[in-house]
């Protein structure tokens, strides 16, 4: 059988026992469902935002970007769930499947973290801009009242 990544395994293999497979199987099922609900919520958010924007004529408010991040994370979570599921269903490549599953989940977390950092930077810039505008208006008002 081919290695899951189509190459010779770098990892020493180990076979999980039945009790451990039960834990992994439970995790795989829940991860799959979590990924699906994440994607469903992202799609609802995008569709709802588009519908409201169309009826109100308002501009995009950034929730769609969050929804896209959720959909991407959901896809990585489902990919991780499939690799976890393969640990239970196959024999001989448990550690390789485990590492692929953990790397997929790790990517989902990385996407989430990058989104949080970008959001934090944007919010900080907006707050700084508003404070700057406030200072400009305050100095203008002070010079006018003199």
């Amino acid at each position, binding site marked *: 059988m081919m290695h899951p990544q189509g190459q010779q395994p*770098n990892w020493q293999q180990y*076979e999980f026992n039945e009790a451990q497979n039960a834990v992994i199987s439970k995790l795989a099922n829940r991860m799959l469902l979590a990924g699906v609900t*994440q994607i469903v919520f992202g799609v609802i*958010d995008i569709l709802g935002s588009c519908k409201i924007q169309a009826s109100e004529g308002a501009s995009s408010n950034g929730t769609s970007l969050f929804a896209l991040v959720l959909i991407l994370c959901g896809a990585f979570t489902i990919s991780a769930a499939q690799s976890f599921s393969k640990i239970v269903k196959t024999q001989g490549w448990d550690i390789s499947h485990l590492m692929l599953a953990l790397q997929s989940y790790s990517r989902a977390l990385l996407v989430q*973290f990058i989104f949080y950092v970008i959001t934090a930077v944007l919010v900080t810039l907006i707050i700084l801009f508003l404070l700057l505008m406030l200072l400009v208006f305050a100095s203008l008002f002070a010079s006018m009242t003199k």
Partner: protein
Amino acid sequence: MQQGPEMLDPKGHEYEFGPQDNQVFHVLAARMRRVGVVQIILSILQVGGYTAGFILVQKGAGALQLAIEIPIALAFLAGGVLLLNAAAPFRSIVDSWGNDVGHLMKAFDRLSTLMTVMIGGFALASVLYIVMFVVKLVTK
């Protein structure tokens, strides 16, 4: 059942992950901790922001919006705490020696709890968002 080359360790409980595996666990645990901490901070700010906005700016109006956003923010907070909780055993795999599979199973168990909260949170958020969108469209 698919069959593959057998390199099985008969003493499962004594299996020790190698340096390459440990690197994967190390990166995963670090990302889980970072995302968990940011999620906790953001959800606390969200709850505070929504509540302050409801009381000070909207003067009690927009209760529906608040009723929708607060449970979602609380689920987000719970997710952050559970992420931190699940990161600890992954970190233990790297830091300790002799019980890697035990730590892995503990991590998976905690990750399962996190996934259950995520399923509940996103299902609840989906229902609440549909209600919010319908109410917004009907009241326009």
